[in-house]
Every structure is written in C-alpha cells, then in structure tokens.
C-alpha cells in the first residue's frame, strides 16, 4: 500500500505492508533510528513521536494509518546541528543516563511545552507519565523540562 508522509519537513513515499508498525517504518524504511523500540507493548514510550501535532506511541499505530500525515521525530529537534533549548537543557541537567528513553522523553516534553509553556512539576510528571526511564532518572528529566520552560 502506498504511504506518503512528511517527516521533519521532508516528504517520503513508500510502498508499505499494512501490518508494519509506524515505528518500524520510521526506523527500517526511512532510516530514522532516533525513535527507539523499547517494550513494544505500548508501555515504555521510547517510540513516541508527534503525528499531526498529536503525541503518539508508534508501536501502537500502523504505518498505513499515518498516510498523508506530518510527523515530527527526535531527529527534527536540532536545527543546523545545534541542540535546541530542550535538548541542551537535558544535557545541562544530566537528564539521561543510558539514554535509551531520551528520544521519547524529548518528544513528550516537546508536546507538553507546546500545549503548556509553563507547566508545574505535577504537570511535567503527568506529561511524561507514558515514558519509562529504566535508569529511574526522573528527577533530572523533570528538572531539565522545568528549566527549558523558563
């Protein structure tokens, strides 16, 4: 089935099997490997991206469902090789340990800050409730998001 998407401003057209999950389409077909497969059960959020302005877990969406949509992934955050404010804040606050959850955390934080530019700590924690950090480094992640919002 033909699928046409715009990812981080670039248009892609591919022939895709309906059974292919959006995460595998992004990683294997488009070679955008920033979004991670963590649990593959919809729990961990490492595969989170923004589809038509909405934060979703791409292991629970088919690639064919994204046909015609505009997708933002972690690869689109940095501009001209420079980390954006949120990414720099993650770096400054040591908000990553192994880094596996980071792409998903960044996309969830991006979606949160767009909707709510000055979230409280509780709102930040709700915003990333769908993202699991197995290093349990949540404190610094919350700090990084809070600092990026200021």
């Amino acid at each position: 089935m033909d699928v046409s998407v715009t990812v981080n401003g670039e248009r892609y057209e591919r022939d895709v099997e309906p059974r292919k999950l959006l995460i595998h389409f992004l990683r294997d077909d488009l070679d955008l490997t920033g979004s991670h497969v963590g649990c593959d059960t919809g729990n961990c959020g490492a595969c989170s991206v923004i589809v038509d302005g909405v934060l979703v877990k791409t292991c629970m969406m088919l690639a064919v469902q994204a046909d015609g949509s505009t997708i933002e992934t972690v690869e689109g955050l940095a501009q001209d090789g420079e980390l954006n404010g949120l990414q720099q804040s993650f770096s400054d606050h040591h908000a990553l340990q192994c880094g596996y959850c980071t792409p998903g955390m960044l996309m969830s934080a991006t979606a949160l800050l767009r909707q709510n530019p000055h979230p409280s700590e509780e709102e930040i924690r709700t915003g990333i409730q769908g993202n699991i950090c197995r290093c349990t480094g949540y404190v610094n992640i919350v700090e990084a998001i809070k600092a990026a919002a200021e």
Partner: protein
Amino acid sequence: MLLREVEYARPASVEEAVRLLSEHDGARALAGGQTLINVMKARAASPDMLVDLNRLDELKGIDLATDGTLSLGSMVTYTELIGSAEARARPILGEVCAQIGDVQVRNRGTLGGNVCSNDPTNHLPPLMVALGATMHITGPGGDRTVPADEFFLGVYLTAAGAGELLTKITVPPGKSDGFASVTIGKDGTCIVNAAASVNGGVRVAIGCVDAVPVLLKADSVDDVPAAVQNAKLEPPSDVHASADYRRRLAELAATRAAAQAQGKS
C-alpha cells in the same frame, strides 16, 4: 514486532465500514488501536482485515442536546473528551478519562474502543452502566439501541455483534457521580473499580469482579456497603489480589464512589 499479515481498509463512511465488517468474516474494526494492535502482536487476536475507523468524522462528534443528553461519538478520544466543553455537562466523564493510561494512550484511545473491548479492568464499562448510558449500534440490519447494563455480555464480548458497529453513546444529564479504583501503581491496571451515580436512588457498578460490570442499586449511599455484601460477589483471584481481598476492595471502592457522588449532589 511483526504482526501477522492483515488486509487494511479505510472506509469513507460508516455505511461502508459496516459493509466491510459484515462481508468479511475475519474483519475487525480498528479504533484507537491501543489494545487491538498489542493483542495482535501477541497473536491473541488475528483478524484477516482491519477496518480503520479513524477517518470517519461522523463518529467523532460530541453534542449536548437542549434536554441535557450528551451524545458521544464512538471514535472520540479520551483527550478530545477531556478537552470538550460540552462533555463537562457530565463532569465524571472527563475525570475518569483523565485516569486512563497515559498522555499518548489518551491521545489515540477511544470511548468506543474502551467499551467494545470490554476488558473487565477497563474504566468505562462500569462508568457507562452506573450512568445509565445508551449504546447506539448500527449494522447490516439497521440501527438499534442497547442500555449499557445490557451491552456488556462477557469478557471481551458485547452486544455489538459481528458486522455491527457502535456509533455513539448517549448519556443522560446528571452531576452526582463518583468513581474510585485501586490500581497496580499510580496509573496502572485496575484491581477493582467502581462507578456510582446518585439520582434519587444510588446506582453503583463494580468492575474487575466479574466478566461484566456488576450493577447494584441502593436506596441511599449508606446502604451501599450492605448492598455489596449482599451481592455475594465471586471475583477472580490472581497475583495482584485474592478473591477475598478483591471482594473487600470492591466494597471499599463502591463506598468511596458513592460517597463522592453524594458529595456532588
């Protein structure tokens, strides 16, 4: 994970969706996919065809009638309901939807998907039963309505049969509602949940204790604990809670939900 091979159809109308569902034995409606895609990975479900409802705008409306009846399209997401001014006419709906899953799941998961999957640990089946909602079903034979307390037939089984589609849920007016649950972790799966509505008498629907929500009626909130005891619930035992413990939690959740409902009257 790679799913089993599956055909994919994107109908342009509810009529076409119903035709696809009724003409293909192995066809299944794909709502938000937050349950179905995962059970397909585990091969617990292996449909031959997915009929994607996501682009059917006719299933996405939220309307408030002049008599206060709220009409919720089956493809309304939890996030859309939480943000809807109309849906605040029955505040418990948004309050409960905000407790489901996480941000990403609420962005994709739908009201129709929640009730039609009828997992006994889901939030919305007991809520819809307690509120006295009406389920609107369309199929090859036409349209029909089923009261929520007759809609849930068994684990993963509802009155929306093969070839049929839930199109909307209507909820009568009211404000004195409550919901309480005991979950695994803060946002996890329910061990027990209960929804209550006070309108003259008290309607309490308890989830996770049987294949379908258990509806109890009491004259007053004070009578709810006795009503739960008299119901002689036989809940399942699992690693999270023994039957005895779950029975105790059911009484607790029902009592809390009823007290919360009364507090809003």
